[in-house]
């Protein structure tokens, strides 16, 4: 395997740095600081300490026996990222970037958020480190995820509703970048997914790879061998790349990223960037993108605010094009059925994002054998989604 990204932040033809000149020096400084500190044992020790004592890692790799038996013969494991402090994998990256910001002497952080999980994680870490925090969130999402807005405010963060464009995650990202351009002197941008200009996709991957590193150790302990298949939901793709990356060199381990098909990939209402998108530049990097023939970015649709994004991390685009990973769509309805299935078979309410990964496994598991081992990244817990689930169940969800 070729180690990616290269010095220019390229994953094959993807990635790079497509940003206004005003940000270039900040990105270069960030990259230099990251390279410097990531080789510093004290930096890693501080992150490890917080991941363990503060967030509660390592998270369990749980054999979901009742779910497995319900779906056939394959053994299905759940990597319980939902058991992290703040309820999702997002804290892994927020701790990493927060400590980096501290090392760089920054006292203010900003973040974009969709479902609110990354916003909550960043607000949490900002409180922990005594930093000022502003979170940009699409106005539409502030309504869908009102509880997370309140959480962020409780944690001392300022939540800025974004009213431009589609008023969802992509616009929150645009607005965070615009704010950063104006405050690049003293502000650190804690980007929440494996997207954006170099070095973010690489950095976020490296802060999230703990998911895959632990999984490898845990599955070897439990089964004495590596799994046949890893399955994870992909919006921007940070939990998926964190799970996949440590296994990229293991040819026998299949990888499937599950993206949101919304109301269906043949309708205009989906977020299936890999299935229906094409190469384009968006929010600082080259990747697959949902766009029209003129290069205008299209609106994405998903019941899950965290997957409602027209772009995807450049490393996923690379893994798709070299055919190392496969990307498949799952609809709102399928995700909702899978969510309920996990509730009743295992007593776990997954986040709507993670429910997409379960839904795909529910489709393929019946055709697998007792020798097959699948690991699903259960990226977050579903408490934040209970209202959306209720509305959907009652048929009141319009999108």
């Amino acid at each position: 395997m070729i180690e990616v990204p290269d010095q220019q932040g390229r994953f094959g033809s993807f990635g790079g740095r497509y940003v206004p000149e005003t940000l270039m020096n900040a990105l270069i400084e960030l990259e230099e600081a990251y390279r410097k500190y990531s080789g510093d044992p004290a930096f890693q020790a501080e992150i490890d300490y917080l991941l363990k004592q503060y967030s509660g890692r390592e998270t369990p790799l749980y054999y979901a026996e009742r779910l497995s038996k319900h779906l056939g013969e394959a053994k299905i494991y759940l990597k319980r990222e939902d058991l992290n402090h703040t309820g999702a994998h997002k804290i892994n990256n927020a701790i990493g970037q927060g400590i980096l910001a501290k090392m760089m002497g920054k006292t203010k952080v900003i973040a974009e958020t969709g479902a609110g999980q990354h916003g909550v994680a960043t607000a949490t870490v900002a409180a922990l480190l005594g930093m000022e925090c502003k979170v940009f969130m699409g106005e539409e999402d502030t309504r869908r995820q009102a509880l997370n807005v309140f959480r962020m405010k409780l944690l001392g963060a300022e939540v800025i509703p974004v009213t431009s464009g589609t008023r969802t995650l992509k616009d929150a990202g645009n607005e965070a970048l615009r704010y950063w351009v104006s405050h690049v002197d003293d502000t650190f941008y804690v980007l929440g997914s494996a997207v954006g200009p170099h070095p973010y996709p690489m950095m976020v991957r490296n802060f999230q790879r703990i998911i895959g590193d632990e999984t490898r150790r845990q599955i070897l302990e439990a089964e004495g061998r590596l799994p046949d298949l890893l399955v994870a939901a992909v919006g921007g793709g940070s939990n998926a790349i964190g799970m996949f990356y440590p296994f990229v060199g293991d040819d026998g381990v299949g990888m499937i990223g599950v993206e949101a098909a919304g109301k269906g990939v043949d309708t205009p209402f989906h977020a299936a960037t890999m299935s229906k998108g094409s190469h384009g530049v968006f929010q600082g990097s080259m990747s697959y993108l949902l766009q029209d023939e003129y290069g205008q970015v299209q609106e994405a649709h998903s019941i899950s605010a965290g997957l409602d994004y027209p772009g995807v991390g450049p490393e996923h685009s690379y893994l798709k094009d070299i055919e190392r990973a496969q990307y498949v769509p799952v609809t709102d309805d399928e995700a909702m059925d899978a969510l309920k299935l996990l509730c009743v078979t295992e007593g776990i309410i997954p986040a709507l994002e993670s429910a997409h990964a379960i839904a795909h496994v529910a489709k393929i598991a019946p055709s697998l054998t007792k020798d097959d081992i699948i690991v699903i990244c259960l990226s977050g817990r579903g408490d934040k989604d209970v209202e959306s689930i209720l509305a959907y169940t009652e048929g009141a969800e319009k999108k």
Partner: protein
Amino acid sequence: MTTETTNRMDVTFQNLKQQGRAALIPFLTVGDPDLETTLAIIQELEAAGADMLELGVPYSDPLADGPVIQRASARALKSSIHVRTCMETALKARQAGSTLPFILFTYYNPVLQMGLDNFFAEVNNHEISGLIIPDLPVEESADMRRRSREVGVNLIPLVAPTSSERIAKIVTGASGFVYCVSSLGVTGERSSFHAGVEEFISSVRQATDLPVAVGFGISTSEQVARFASICDGVVVGSAIVRKVEDVIPLLDNPATRSEGLLQIREFVAQLRPAESRLL
């Protein structure tokens, strides 16, 4: 590469230099509120003393732009204005008698989707003298620079107050002019600029023999005068786009349309009063 100067922008800068004047460079979002009005506004800007024009291609995700140009983009996108339409507008303006050099301002993705071969073939026969691509830093621009040179169009580099040691790398091999971003931030009117903006501009001057223009946030005649005294060109964007926005109700009504156009002309004319044109 030819040394003969046929690019209209280069000729304009040479003429202005002989006259001791700085270029007034207004920015317009093409198709805001509609294409016919854009053509009429171009005539007004020329009459108001513009020396060249930036034609903004509306984009769904204008990262470098503040709220005023975002809104203009959104209005123009309702009628599906895209790169090709903008180039056609430049050509139509030329056919209607405009002598101004046109600079196409576009984000990179619309160019990429058109395909670089198609894009440059069209740039070449649509009276485009320059290109500004705000999300294409020098590290990503080698292909665009080479192709721009081949068709004799100037790919205008942007330098920011944060560029510091990058300035030399950015201006090396550039053509047309160097665009200095006045402040940290997105486009939009502002009352103050980056502290040390004069030193910044003079450091850019030292790094290049090309004309140096400044933009981002310049909205008043005082600000234009301040920068015209130290630069070869001053870009006024959001302030003009806001003026267009303000008079849309007038433009939309046939009875008041000429009044709306006149207000745009007067706004631009007062940015550089006739008596101060010769600095």
